[in-house]
């Protein structure tokens, strides 16, 4: 299982998801009514490193974070 965390304004508790790659996480979240509208605008980090491929491999215990649009300062 990987842990999926939702950062900033996404008001949602972390999820545990069975996933071998990020593609599996995408499939799970696209069926989640609470979060699916955020997916188009979120960046994704695996274990606190930003990633750009759905083929990114995951192993049990990995942390996947969703980062919605930012505005510091």
């Amino acid at each position: 299982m990987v842990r999926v965390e939702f950062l900033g304004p996404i008001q949602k508790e972390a999820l545990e998801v069975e996933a071998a790659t990020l593609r599996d996480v995408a499939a799970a979240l696209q069926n989640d009514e609470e979060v699916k509208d955020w997916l188009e605008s979120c960046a994704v980090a695996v274990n606190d490193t930003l990633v750009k491929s759905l083929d990114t491999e995951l192993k049990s215990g990995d942390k996947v974070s969703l980062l919605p649009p930012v505005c510091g300062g």
Partner: protein
Amino acid sequence: MLEIFDGPVPVEEILVRWYRDEAGSNYGAYIPFIGTIRDEDEISGLSFDIYEPILESWFTAWQERAREAGAILKMAHSRGDVPLHTSSYVAAVFSPKRKVALKMINDFVEDFKASAPIWKYDLKDGKRLYAADRSTPISGSGLLGE
């Protein structure tokens, strides 16, 4: 150096401390940028969430970029609520000469706005409202929507 404060950033203390810390470092230029909360749209202030692990790695990469240019970068930011007319952000570049520092503070703040994992909320009518229309998707966003 990356500093996070709960509430407003203590601007005067920081500017003086950073100045003193580098007084003997032989930098000819010290260029700070200070972000202050303006009275607009009937807000009583702003509020911020920060995700520190990625903010730290982003800032470390910028420190390396500064070092290669012979400069150093410092930054302080607020977490939580920041009232009107106080400050939520201070960044500064020290470099041997001004041109490097002036360009770097601009490039740094631009990338900060586009990439630093910080989320802004308006404080209005007792509510904390995500500033969605002023926020920018981080490069590479949308992966999970494909």
